[in-house]
């Protein structure tokens, strides 16, 4: 009978106490794990998606909303801008690349974005199958779109208005899938890309469509545009110029995302504080259950001391119980964190895939494991001291 087997048997004997301690500790640990992984991944995915975009233009409104809707596709756009004005901006000598975006429709929850081939090139996304869209009503779809909606090359579908699946259906013409992009951990994964012309055609009213040749060319509109500067100096002058001289609103992604992070940061800080409070309560619960367990076993332990077991063995027994609780809780927490992170990456397509695996590989795990062992040791200090000082004759006389 070694001390560690004895510790396990004793924990099993006090199932409810052990369970409560393990539950508390594993929940608080899982919260810490989820937080540090999700935070990293959240920041990383937001930064990855603004790579190469120096400026975004949209209709006048909140700059953050323009960024969220046009770069991350997680908000409604502020309105439309005129294509003519955008093309004028694209010709500016400070502008290296200008990518137009027209959106406002979806197919079963996935956004349909009218753009040109520069958009996927911006993120270096390659084709997995098929080819890039060329003519109106051809679409190339992101990897998640293909997987989630079970779409293949050659499939036909028609979009609905708005961003929710229940939007009014556009019954006129079918979109045709001509290509599927490779998984890239960028926004492209969840988008349906098509030429601008498709979006314009879909939104023309049928009676207009019939008489199109009788009218003057309709003023074309887009929703937003992504701009890459040719010269960093443009950061200072161009936004001001756009805001004062055009009907468009300029937004700098880097600045808006920093603002978003600082907003999110306070929420994350609060959650983190909560996790540490829970961790502290878990440590107290281990302490209480160890002390209670010790009190219940005191006569038996005093007997073993009387027949010659060393006091260090008894101290080791108390510590081993605490360490077992901590280790079991750590393993539970790991499982809990992996499962909830996997669910999280399914729910939030903007976060990268395989968050659960990421948390396992995070070097912080080793620190967390070390901290857990330290917490376990601290929780066992007082009970171990109590065990060390067991008054054998008194306890045996009272037994």
């Amino acid at each position: 009978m070694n001390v560690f087997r004895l510790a396990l048997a004793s924990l099993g004997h006090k199932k409810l106490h052990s369970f409560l301690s393990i539950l508390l500790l594993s929940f608080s640990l899982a919260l810490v794990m989820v937080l540090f992984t999700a935070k990293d991944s959240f920041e990383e995915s937001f930064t990855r998606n603004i790579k190469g975009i120096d400026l975004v233009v949209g209709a006048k409104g909140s700059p953050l909303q323009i960024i969220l809707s046009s770069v991350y596709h997680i908000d409604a756009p502020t309105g439309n801008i005129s294509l003519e004005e955008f093309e004028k901006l694209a010709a500016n000598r400070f502008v290296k690349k200008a990518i137009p975006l027209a959106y406002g429709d979806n197919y079963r929850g996935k956004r349909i974005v009218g753009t040109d081939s520069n958009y996927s090139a911006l993120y270096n996304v390659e084709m997995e199958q098929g080819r890039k869209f060329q003519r109106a009503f051809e679409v190339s779809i992101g990897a998640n779109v293909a997987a989630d909606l079970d779409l293949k090359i050659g499939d036909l579908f028609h979009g609905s208005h708005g961003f929710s699946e229940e939007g009014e259906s556009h019954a006129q013409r079918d979109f045709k899938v001509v290509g599927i992009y490779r998984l890239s951990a960028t926004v492209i994964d969840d988008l349906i890309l098509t030429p601008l012309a498709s979006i314009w055609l879909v939104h023309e009213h049928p009676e207009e469509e019939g008489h199109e040749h009788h009218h003057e060319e309709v003023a074309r509109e887009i929703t937003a545009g992504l701009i890459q500067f040719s010269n960093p100096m443009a950061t200072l002058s161009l936004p001001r110029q756009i805001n004062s001289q055009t009907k468009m609103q300029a937004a700098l992604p880097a600045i808006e995302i920093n603002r978003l992070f600082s907003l999110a940061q306070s929420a994350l800080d609060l959650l983190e504080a909560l996790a540490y409070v829970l961790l502290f309560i878990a440590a107290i619960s281990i302490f209480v259950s160890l002390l209670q367990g010790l009190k219940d076993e005191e006569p038996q332990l005093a007997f073993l001391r009387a027949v010659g077991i060393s006091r260090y063995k008894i101290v080791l027994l108390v510590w081993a119980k605490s360490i077992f609780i901590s280790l079991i809780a750590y393993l539970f927490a790991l499982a809990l964190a992996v499962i909830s992170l996997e669910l999280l990456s399914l729910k939030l397509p903007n976060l990268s895939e395989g968050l659960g695996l990421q948390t396992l590989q995070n070097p912080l795990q080793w620190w967390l494991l070390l901290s857990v062992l330290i917490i376990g040791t601290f929780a066992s200090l007082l009970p171990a001291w109590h065990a060390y000082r067991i008054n054998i004759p008194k306890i045996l006389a009272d037994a």
Partner: protein
Amino acid sequence: MALQTTNLQFSYHAQKVFKFPDIKLASADAALIIGPSGSGKTTFLNLIAGLQKPSIGEVKLGHQFINKLVGRSLERFRAEHLGLIFQKSLFLPYLSMMDNMKIIYSIQKRKASPTEIESLFADLNISHILHKKASTCSIGEQQRAAIARALLQKPSLILADEPTAALDDANAQKVGDLLLQMSKSQKTALLIVTHDARLKKLISKSYHL
């Protein structure tokens, strides 16, 4: 002599001093310590076991003065030479009797011998509880297992504090008989603190406090 005490005295405070009779016990010898409650019977036992230190006097077991040992060497001496039996048997309730016995081996740093445990349990007529959890055994069974545990240590002295107090007549008789028989066959000195009249019929030698 297996056990010899000389001029033992102990006091919890100055007003009350316990003086204990000198005891001489050969191996395989058995004796009772008899006295009313509060006369210091358990204290006497603790002094002999080295669990408490006398204010004056000596306890000699074999060639060793127990009262001169401290710390780890006292613990080791107890592990090798003393078997203890109490009114309650004090087994870890969540372990089987077998595992409770194995703890004794690990304290003595010996390799556990299941066959030794089995034959001892057979001698004491409790083979059927060997793999039962201690908490599920009756008090009579537990007390017999406590004798087995004391004998497993191969001690030169068994100290028993009211081993039959919690037992009915039939079980008290059985436990008393077994203790005597085992101490004879294993050449172990036996000292029993008791006020149980049933034991006085079995063991004639006694010290009165």
